């Protein structure tokens, strides 16, 4: 990294943190600390909701998803706009009229304290894990690619977030997220233009799209129904809908964002803004990944993107095999590039048979490249057993670090850090509010002053920040970060959503039935996760359906026994 990169990176981060601390000093009670005195306007709410969901994992992993698997991941978000509409109609008016601090407070009014406590506990476990991953994920990628110390990177992110979140609470989180979103989307827009500019002169944007399309990257929408397929229209519109309903309707890290709005109207508009912009935003980020893919059809990519491990491989007994693979990779790449150029010439001449023939050759060579990559991953696992073999999360950042001009590398790193910080801040704020309101104030210290609870809130924010940093420092990583986060979410969200759906819509069911149903459902979902190949998005539907079905049935049984 150049001096310009460091200036851009640290300048951006410190300005945002300083702004957050300065503008939001002086909360006097937990209403101000957790609900921002209900002062936020809809665009602040909308940007806050979007920034909370868009963690560093989005910007690291999503382009890598597109690079590897095409753009079909966008289907995951198809249920989100529908969820925003449903929540605007149902959950928002209820939360506002009850004047709750947390989503789980509502459950005590509807059922009882133990159901509230159970839902809060499930949230704290799931989001507590998530908060650690939110810090760890960018830290491990940055650490591996740039040689930064992992613990120091985790601590750096964590400490920055703790400073303004402890200081200013919800207001600090929301106000900084506006600028973090600007950095994130501005940075990605700059990245897209830079990538297009870096393509060979003879390759236009249209040519780039043709290459990407011919190699299957525009596999955006798939209407075929396959229960084991992770991403298709049906899993997105149903499983994705349930996930979004649960995440935005019952996860305190999101609920807290829109509960800070000035009114129901502002809250609704914020969510609907997310409903309008989220899908195009994700499409754009995936598209950046496709552009990186096209770039690497004309400029040779590394055999393995995690370059931090290359020294160890080259010093191992597998060095010769590795060099042979690299040679094979280079030769196959050169052949493929020729065929791709042949494809573009045929397209220019509108020679359909030649296009089809070239496309087939490119597909075969692409398959060979994929096989060489798989062999490389096998070699890595043998030469460096502790190394990560799955390198899709490193593709985008490796590309940025090795190809972007000075200053812009710093900007893209600022994107990653801003995304990590914006999500972490919301998570810490939510973990603290649930701990304070649903557990501490409700069950431990019921008679305290406002000042006492304010200090308790700050303490719990700090505590969860430290826990998240510690977890990040000791966590290990799954194959793909964005999938791992959503898998963890899907295992818990269905049950929590089921509890809330019963609460909102099935008045017949009382506390004992829903409590037992929730515990049984969670156990079944966890069992299914470990023993079947069901796509993870479906666990949202399964968990939710189980709670609703079991709660209704149990209530009937309990009712009959009572009679």
């Amino acid at each position, binding site marked *: 990294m150049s001096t310009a990169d460091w200036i851009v990176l640290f300048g951006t981060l410190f300005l945002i943190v300083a702004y957050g601390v300065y503008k939001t000093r002086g909360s006097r009670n937990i209403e101000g600390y957790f609900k921002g005195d209900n002062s936020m306007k809809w665009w602040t709410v909308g940007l806050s909701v979007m920034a909370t969901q868009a963690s560093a994992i989005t910007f690291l992993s999503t382009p890598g998803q597109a690079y590897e698997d095409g753009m079909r991941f966008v289907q995951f978000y198809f249920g989100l706009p529908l969820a925003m509409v449903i929540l*605007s109609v149902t959950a928002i008016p209820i939360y506002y009229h009850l004047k709750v601090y947390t989503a789980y407070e509502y459950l005590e009014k509807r059922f009882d304290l133990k159901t509230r406590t159970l839902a809060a506990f499930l949230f704290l476990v799931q989001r507590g894990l998530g908060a650690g991953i939110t810090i760890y994920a960018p830290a491990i990628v940055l650490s591996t690619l740039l040689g930064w110390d992992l613990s120091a990177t985790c601590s750096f992110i964590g400490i920055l977030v703790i400073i303004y979140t402890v200081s200013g609470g919800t207001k600090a989180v929301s106000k900084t997220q506006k600028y973090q979103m600007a950095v994130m989307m501005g940075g990605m827009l700059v990245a897209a233009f830079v990538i297009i500019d870096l393509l060979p002169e003879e390759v236009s944007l249209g040519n780039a799209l043709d290459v990407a399309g011919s190699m299957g990257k525009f596999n955006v929408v798939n209407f075929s129904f396959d229960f084991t397929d992770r991403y298709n229209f049906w899993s997105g519109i149903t499983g994705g809908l349930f996930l979004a309903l649960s995440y935005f309707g019952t996860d305190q890290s999101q609920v807290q964002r829109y509960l800070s709005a000035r009114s129901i109207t502002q809250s609704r508009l914020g969510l*609907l803004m997310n409903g309008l912009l989220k899908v195009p935003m994700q499409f754009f980020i995936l598209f950046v990944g496709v552009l990186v893919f096209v770039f690497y059809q004309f400029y040779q990519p590394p055999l393995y993107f995690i370059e931090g491990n290359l020294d160890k491989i080259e010093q191992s007994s597998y060095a010769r095999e590795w060099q042979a693979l690299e040679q094979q990779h280079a030769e196959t790449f050169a052949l493929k590039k020729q065929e791709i150029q042949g494809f573009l010439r045929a397209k220019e001449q509108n020679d359909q048979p030649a296009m089809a023939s070239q496309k087939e050759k490119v597909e075969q060579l692409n398959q060979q490249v994929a096989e060489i990559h798989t062999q490389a991953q096998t070699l890595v696992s043998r030469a460096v057993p502790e190394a990560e073999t799955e390198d899709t999360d490193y593709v985008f950042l490796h590309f940025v670090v090795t190809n972007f001009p000075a200053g812009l590398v710093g900007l893209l790193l600022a994107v990653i850090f801003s995304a990590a910080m914006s999500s972490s801040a919301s998570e810490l704020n939510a973990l603290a509010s649930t701990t304070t309101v649903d557990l501490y104030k409700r069950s431990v210290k019921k008679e305290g002053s406002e000042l006492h609870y304010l200090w308790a809130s700050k303490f719990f924010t700090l505590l969860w920040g430290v826990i998240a940093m510690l977890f990040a420092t000791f966590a290990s990583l799954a194959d793909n970060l964005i999938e791992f986060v959503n898998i963890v979410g899907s295992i818990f969200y269905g049950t929590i959503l089921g509890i809330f759906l019963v609460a909102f819509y099935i008045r017949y069911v009382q506390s004992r039935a829903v409590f037992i149903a929730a515990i049984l459902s969670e156990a079944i979902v966890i069992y299914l996760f470990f023993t079947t190949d069901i796509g993870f998005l479906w666990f949202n539907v399964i968990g939710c359906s189980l709670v609703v079905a079991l709660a209704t049935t149990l209530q009937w049984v309990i009712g009959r026994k009572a009679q």
Partner: protein
Amino acid sequence: MDKDYNINPNEDTPPFFKSWKGMYWLVIGNLIAMVALFYWLTLYYS
């Protein structure tokens, strides 16, 4: 929806629309348009 909560029928209307239904249809319509566009993209390059 839970009928115990007395939602004020005179709640503010959203900008540009006479009722919230219009906003909701805008969001849903936007989704449909995007899915149609993405599907066209998929077919065009398939």
